[in-house]
């Protein structure tokens, strides 16, 4: 009989796979950011499963991974916010939804001085 932790553990692993797939294959930056969040949630879920497996001493779940997941969620949010801000600024600058899959050729063109 499959246990709850195994079930959620396996689903977390599938979420990781889905997140990886989306991050690699989807060309739109916003969808990549979304896939990154999916991937991250899969990793956090796995940590939650590990916490649950470590129940003991009167606790239903090991609190250390829980605390770490909370911290991790904040980091992931900050990362998402930074990425979204960059993406929107880039959109504002170029006026089109750029792709990250291939490089902007202008970077290889001689640039104006970087120093003001």
């Amino acid at each position, binding site marked *: 009989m499959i246990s709850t932790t195994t079930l959620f553990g396996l689903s977390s692993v599938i979420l990781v796979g889905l997140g*990886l797939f989306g*991050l*690699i*294959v989807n060309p739109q930056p916003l969808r990549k950011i979304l896939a990154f969040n999916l991937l991250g949630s899969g990793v956090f879920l796995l940590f939650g499963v590990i916490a649950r497996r470590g129940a003991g001493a009167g606790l239903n779940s090991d609190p250390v991974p829980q605390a770490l997941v909370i911290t991790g969620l904040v980091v992931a949010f900050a990362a998402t916010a930074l990425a979204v801000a960059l993406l929107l600024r880039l959109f504002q600058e170029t006026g089109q939804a750029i792709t*990250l*899959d*291939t*490089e902007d050729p202008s970077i290889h063109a001689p640039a104006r001085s970087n120093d003001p």
Partner: protein
Amino acid sequence: MISAEMLLLISFATPVALLLACGWRMVRERMPTLFAFAPLPALATALWAVNRPPWVFNEARLHITFVLDMPGAILLGVAALLWSAAGLYASTYLRGHPNLGRFSIYWLLTLTGSLGVFVAADLFTFYLTFALLSLAAYGLVVFDGTPRARRAGIIYLVLALLGEIFLLMGFVLLASAIPGDSLAIRDALATLPTSPWRDPTVALLIAGFGLKMGLVPLHVWLPIAHPAAPMPASAVLSGAIIKAGVIGLIRFLPFDVPLPDWGVALTAVGLLTAFYSVVIGITQPNPKTVLAYSSVSQMGVVAAVLGMGLAAGQSNAVMAATFYSAHHLLAKGALFLAVGVVAATGPRRLWWVLVPAAILALGIGGLPLTGGALAKLAVKPVLGDGRVELLATLSAIGTTLLMLHFLHRLAASASPDPSASAPIGFALSWMLMFVAAIGVPWTLYGVTGIGVYDDVLQPKILWAALWPILIGAGLALGLWRWGRYLPPIPEGDIVVVGQPALRVVVRCEDALERVEGGLRQWPVAGLFMLLLILILGGVMFHGY
């Protein structure tokens, strides 16, 4: 009484101080006038050291070790002499030149390395000075800024770096064989014969130093780079700098333990070089190129001498090769200066340049009573009586032919203005070198105990030196008569194979660039990330 430490210190402090002074524009503009004096402390050091037991200077904090022994001191002394004379020449040559600051920096850098390499006593110091002279000399080769000089510079640099690579690996192998932390050349030599990496070490060392000496087939850069440099730089390049390879072989090969295979191989390469470069040299119209090929040929003879010594475990080969090289250094340096003097001299005054030049040129072939004859005499015992000796004699014929061809081309390169005469600086330095090239070998020959003067004057020996000259002269007549039928061969001969090789390299680079362009795609990089996870995980799984 100045101590040896002080002398040695001043020898290197002088060029370094001048180099630092180049940071100041006022001094930099006047620096060439000081060129002639920069090597003089080193000359004094060499004079101090001649005929004394080896003396070691160790500065442990900076890993700098020097040794003053006979071979090092002799080469240091004659090299300092050439640097001084060429410096005098350069100060006139550069007058009013817009880039003379640049020249000064590279001249002094090369000078420091060139003098240091003769006295370096540990692997680090040797590699440091060797690399310094190799790379700084690039600045001299390309100084003219012409496309020809720049091409020469690239070829020079590629091969010089290749040589550095051979040496670095060889040195690491040497150091790895030394028990403990020592980097002293003496300790390296002591362990080399029993080192587990003996053969690769010796091969790498011969390749690295042979490249600097111009041994075939690693000689290609030399006939291209030496003529491309300005006249005084050509003189030191062909005279002093290639001797870094000679001192390298002297310092790093174990001459008291016979290594027959390597000895024979080195001799064979040396003799091949000696003949090959004569054959190519006689097709060259430019007197400087002819001289460069002659340098290659002469270094071949030195390599043959060292090879015979290595094969038989004869340590007297060291002094013989040193003396031979010292003579070549002076004579070749002088002849390069002569090319410059002749180019500035009209036909009317030409004879007083051409006659001494002829004496020096034929001296390289072994003309009796010249330093060259002494040099040939000095190496004779090492070469023995067999086939090698015969081949060496034949190479003297070749050298004579090559040097007569040089004189021919030299005379043709005189200034078209009949009354032109070389500036006093040119003439003075040339006369100085001429005197040195005649006088110094004679002095050294007796003083250092390489031979006794009485031997030199025996008729049998005089004749033995003379007949190859005569045959060479006969061949030279033939060359003048039928020389035009010789095929034109570019400078650096086999360098032409570099062209298709270069195309292949460029094509490979194109391919790499295309592949990298593909890898810069996000999805591809992402896939590689997953692939690497699987590979690393799999490899670890498989490992147990």
